[in-house]
């Protein structure tokens, strides 16, 4: 065998040549043949760039950037009155005051921590690195204790029948689901066979739901997936159909969050033209509520919580490394606010009456905050 360096070079170069041959054989892959954006200018530019990149030319033919790039109108959906949220409100209030900088205790957070979830009145922080994940349990201001290792990349978690169920993927199984028992045993659960990916998870009225993506069979050449939703039956997954005229996401869009709204299931989805909340009306239909009617593809929903009678959805923008809070009391009118000092928000978890927020600061280190009357403050408290 050659040196490792020359093997990597040969592998990457040969693989790229093979791909280029495929691309130049059929331009339809980049244009009509896929579920492209509902933005004709973007589709044209992208198709041009993909093709020209493949043949090594930069002589671009670009449309006027002042042309209207407003996406086409989506389907009109009848919206029912919003449901009442049943979770009791927390008595503390958020003010504009926030703290800056990381708490001393942030040193206890693993650098790759990216998920926060409540389990048996304990805050669980999950880190993922190189295809493995570790669950860290916190108790008070004691540094997190390493509890469980999972062979895969965990994306989200929720409690179901006293176990912590996790979704994500591993290198061999692809989409993956795990159930962690109270004794910290880890059980591999088969993901829905038709799922390309799974992520959002929630337990609603003793039923566990997961969401993800399924292949777009009408466009088999496309990498885009259609939204998928499954219910755990106790022995397997039962897929629930989603009306594609309601769940009509554009390119790279899909479901981001599942939310228990009382005894009803709510879903948050986003794509290039906006973000929406979908609330279950009955087993057949959903109401659709617009959260933000603009591009959120560089800022997508990552977490939610209820506070003071309001629903709050957190959208994080990897590009600007900043996050936005969308807050609504009636699920119709959404107010946008920011907390720049928090950095990039990764997840939010409620443990009892307390809310915890996991964030990444500019330098890449992680910080944990809790919601106090004065706003989000570092957790554990800084010792002076």
């Amino acid at each position, binding site marked *: *065998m*050659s040196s*490792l*360096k*020359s*093997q*990597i*070079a*040969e*592998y*990457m*170069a*040969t*693989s*790229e040549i*093979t*791909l280029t041959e495929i*691309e130049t054989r059929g331009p339809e892959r*980049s244009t009509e043949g896929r579920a492209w954006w509902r933005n004709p*200018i*973007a589709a044209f*530019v*992208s198709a041009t*760039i*993909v093709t020209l*990149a493949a043949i090594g030319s*930069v*002589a*671009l033919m*670009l449309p006027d*950037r002042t042309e209207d*790039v407003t996406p086409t109108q989506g389907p009109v959906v009848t919206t029912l009155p919003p449901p009442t949220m049943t979770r009791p409100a927390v008595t503390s209030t958020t003010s504009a005051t926030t703290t800056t900088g990381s708490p001393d205790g942030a040193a206890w957070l693993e650098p790759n921590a990216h998920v926060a979830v409540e389990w048996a009145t304990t805050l669980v922080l999950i880190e993922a*690195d*190189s*295809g493995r994940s570790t669950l860290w349990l916190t108790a008070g201001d004691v540094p997190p204790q390493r509890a469980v290792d999972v062979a895969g990349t965990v*994306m989200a978690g929720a409690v179901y029948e006293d176990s912590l169920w996790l979704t*994500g*993927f*591993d*290198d061999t199984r*692809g*989409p993956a689901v795990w159930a962690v028992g109270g004794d910290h045993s880890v059980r591999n659960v088969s993901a829905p066979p038709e799922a*390309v*990916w*799974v*992520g959002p998870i929630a337990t609603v009225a003793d039923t566990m739901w997961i969401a*993800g*993506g399924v292949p777009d069979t009408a466009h088999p050449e496309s*990498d885009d*997936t259609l939204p998928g939703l499954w219910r755990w039956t106790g022995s397997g997954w039962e897929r629930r159909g989603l009306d594609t005229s309601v769940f009509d996401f554009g390119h*790279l869009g*899909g479901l981001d969050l599942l939310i228990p709204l009382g005894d009803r299931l709510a879903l948050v989805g986003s794509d290039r033209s906006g973000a929406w909340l979908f609330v279950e009306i009955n087993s057949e239909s959903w109401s659709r509520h617009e959260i933000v009617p603009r591009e959120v*593809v*560089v800022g*997508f929903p990552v977490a939610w919580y209820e506070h003071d009678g309001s629903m709050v959805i957190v959208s994080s*923008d*990897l*590009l600007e490394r900043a996050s936005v809070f969308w807050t609504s009391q009636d699920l119709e009118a959404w107010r946008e606010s920011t907390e720049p000092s928090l950095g990039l928000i990764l997840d939010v978890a409620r443990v009892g009456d307390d809310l915890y927020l996991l964030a990444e600061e500019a330098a890449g280190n992680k910080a944990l905050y809790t919601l106090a009357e004065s706003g989000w403050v570092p957790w554990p408290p800084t010792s002076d």
Partner: protein
Amino acid sequence: MKTEPMSPAVQGFEALFAAHEIPLRRALVAAYGHEDGREAAAEAWVWAWEHYDRLRELENPAGYLYRVGQSKARKWLRRPVRLPDVETASMPSVEPKLPGALRRLSMKQRQVVVLRHAYDTPRREVAELLGISPATVDTHLARGLAKLRAELRES
């Protein structure tokens, strides 16, 4: 045939594309695999065209576009990185376990290893593109190579 003169914006965009298309595409290919990486790069250039006025003011447009590509690729973070198998006929010198070993590196390790070793990208350029220090590039490179060697040796 009459040809319309190119506007300054188009000229500027073409220059930007000529300077940064290859390194940007390679960085995203290293992160997400050949197909997804190329598509993320295309998405980033679409964004660049739509936001060119903002992009032209930036000191490190390639680094910014790299983050745009990362952001566009968010859905792909939910599944394993897709790297094609080794076809022994066309790559006789390559260890068949290499794609799997590359896949199991952390994203930063894989990017640095591929950019430095497959594409001979200068260390400083890798650092600027990924938004990390040159010393961190060295750290990721050393750890990534050590993991690869260990895994290929075990196989």
